[in-house]
Each structure stands twice: as C-alpha cells, then as structure tokens.
C-alpha cells in the first residue's frame, strides 16, 4: 500500500541528486523558482517518477505543479487511481 507520505519521501530521494543549488527540500519548495531547474532536468525527473510508479504524468499537467507538495499530491492521485 502506497500512501502520500511514502510517495513524498521517495520524490525527495529522486529530487536530491538534481538539487544542484542545495536548497532545502520542503513541501513548499518550488522547482523553477527555488531549485532553478531547467526544463530538461524537469523532463528527466518526470520520467523517473513515471518509471518509479508506472504512471503517466502528461506534459499539460506540469504548469500546475509548482511545488514539491503539489507534485506529491498529483503523483499520489495517479498512483491511487491506478489501484
């Protein structure tokens, strides 16, 4: 059973190696603003999350996902929907 907390924890692990600015990773940390991630890094991160949970995160969903917390909610939602 995958819960929100374990999804969040795993997302932090996936982000960590890409966190080149070494900013604190919190629910409210933003990808573009705080971490200054470029679009290619975001693409890699999205792909690794998709592979991790065998889900699909459509590109058109990304503009609404600004913080780590929002991504965790979205991924948790997709995992739950998959059943």
């Amino acid at each position, binding site marked *: 059973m995958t819960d929100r907390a374990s999804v969040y924890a795993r997302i932090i692990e996936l982000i960590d190696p890409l966190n080149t600015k070494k900013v604190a990773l919190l629910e409210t940390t933003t990808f573009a603003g705080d971490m200054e991630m*470029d*679009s*290619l890094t975001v*693409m890699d991160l999205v*792909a690794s999350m*998709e*592979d991790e949970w*065998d*889900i*699909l995160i*459509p*590109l*058109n*969903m990304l503009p609404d996902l600004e913080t780590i917390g929002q991504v965790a909610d979205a991924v948790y939602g997709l995992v739950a929907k998959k059943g």
Partner: protein
Amino acid sequence: MTVDLLAKYDPLIAEHAGLLSTGIRDPFGIVMEKVLSPTEAIIKGKHTILLGTYNYMGMTFDPDVVAAGQAAIRDFGAGTTGSRVLNGTYQTHKECEDALKDFYGMSHAMVFSTGYQANLGMVSTLAGKGDFIILDADSHASIYDGCKMSNADIVRFRHNDAADLEKRLKRLPPEAGKLVVLEGVYSMLGDIAPLPELVAIAKAHGCMVLVDEAHGMGFFGEHGRGVYEEQGVADDVDFVVGTFSKSVGTVGGFCVSNHPKFEILRLVCRPYTFTASLPPAVVACAATSIRKLMTATDKRARLWEATRRLHGGLKARGFNLATDTPESAIVSVLMPDQEATALMWSTLIELGIYVNMSRPPATPAGVFLLRCSICALHTDDQIDTVLGKFEQAAQMCNLPLAVPA
C-alpha cells in the same frame, strides 16, 4: 499604475545586449540586401555564400517556378483577401493541392499558409479531449504549440528512442485515441528518425501516426517524398505534414493523407479556416516547383554529394559534428558555449559565410550549434571556400579543434 508587460523579458534583453557589447554582429538581425542566387547574397555590402537557408533544392530562382508566379500574379492578382473556405480558394490553390496529391501519391491534400500552421492545425484538430498526443522530446515548436492548443493529454518520449516510446504507450488506456507525432529529419542536429521501429511500435499500440517531413521533402526516397518513403513505412503513416519554405522554395504548409474522412478537416481546423489563404503567385510557384521535384534525381544526387563534401571536410579539419555521418542536408557543428558560438558565427559572416546560429531553447539538450544547410546548387568550389573559411575562423577565434585521425 500600468504593469509593463514586457518587463518579463528584461533578462533576455540584458543577455542579448551583453552578447552585442562584445562587438560581434547580431546573429538574429541579418539583412540580405540583394539575393544573387539560391547560394549567394549581398549582406552589409559583402558578397556572402549562403549556407543556412534550407533552400535544399535551389528552387527559389528556377525559371519555370518564377514564370509560374509571374503568370499567376498577372492573371489572379496579388492576393486572395480571404479564407480558404470562403473566397480564398482559386484555381491556383486547387492546382497546388493536385500537385501535392501527385507528388505523394495520396488522395487528399490540404494547403495551409505556413508549415507552422499546418502542424498547429493538424495536431490540435486530430487530438481532442480524452485523446493522447505522444511526441518526440525534440519536436519542432509548431508541434509543441499544436499540443498546447489541443485539449489532449501530452506525452513526451526520449528523442528517437523506440524503447522509451513503447514504455510510455504501454501506460496509456487501450481504448483512448492516440496520435504519435514524428519528424523524418530533426532540424537542429540534422539527424534522422528510426521510423520503422517507431512506427511499428505506434501501430502495435493502436496509434495514428503523423510524420513531419519539412526537412526531408525533395531528396529522401525514390520520389523525394521524405524519410518515411526512404525507410519504407509509407503504408503505416496516416498523415504527412510538410512545408513549401524549404525544398519547394517559397512559403506555405500542407498535410497529405489517404484518410477517407480527411476533407472534413477543412471545416474544423482553425489555423486553416481563420486566416487568409496564400497569394496565387505563391501557390503557383509551389505547384510548379513540386512537379519539378518529382523527377529531380540529378539535383538530389548533387545535394548528397555536396553534403558529403562539407561534412567530410569539416570532420577532417577537426570540427565536432552533431552526426558522425551526414544523415540529412543539415550539417551541425557542436560548439562549446554561447560566447564561442557567437564569436565564430560573427567571424564567419565577416569572412562572407552565412550559417545559422542556434542555441537553447531551440536546440535540444542545451547545445550550441553552427548549423549549415546545403543546397543542390552549391558548387564544389563554394564548399571548398566554406571549408577554408571555417578553418580560418576557428584560428581567429582560438576554437579548439580535434586532431584529425
């Protein structure tokens, strides 16, 4: 108080000003004062060899093409002042679509005002809410914008990676409508797609397939239809999109297909309907050019020969090229960073060579490029001159070159 809506571009304004403050010419501000031929122009009073025009087949000054345009402007006037679906379809537009149907051996052809609009229109109209668009990560801006304009869910796969495409398709609901969008030639690095693998996977997962042959039309395949013809996947491609702004030598875009319901798209495709049609002279030029391209076998052979000469020559001089062998008529030189690229570009233009400078976000993976596109009318002498100037420019810019093997 008014918020200045252009303030968001301040960082870009500063970056561009910084680039120019080093004393180099503006790579995005070139003016051709005179165009002497498909391969030569006068820029800032200087005789310049053009090596960044996409004018692959050199049709812009073809006497038959020019004559067709002159006759059409005389007989039909300067413009149509209307949409294709109202007053903007003339005999010339029908003849242009007939030429496309004959060129591609397909039953339907739709001419748009540009290739950008053809992609925008086709991608956004084919896939709607609840459908999926699956596109290569390195797709052209017009494909990305078509995705944005559609209400479909957008899935991106790694550039030219069949395994990644398959992995993503497996995650999609089998019952959903799916459009896989590919390009024959990717214009930044000049690499071509492994279409047989990609198309087979797309078909196995119940997808419709659209291939953009903007940079492949005219010189790939037996009839010059594109990479999809050369690689033998014509039967499995549902839609081919293309442009008149490259090999055809004028302006305009199109989609061809054998789909029996294709004609309805004319009424639902907004970038087709809600804009004025091309001027009669343009479509007359295009129709004549397309018919000549059908049999332009000598020119095709010459284009490949000139391309191999440039690619081989640059490689031998130690330039770092984006593809190991010449895959298309685009030869891209990989550059270390923005400064080196701009300096080298500027030095080349001062030496009378025009190439394209490309940088992120237009380029994939954050690379900086000096991009050369070859024309069938480039002579060996011109290519040799270009090679010499590249070598000279690299010395003047202290660009490190590999020691030739």
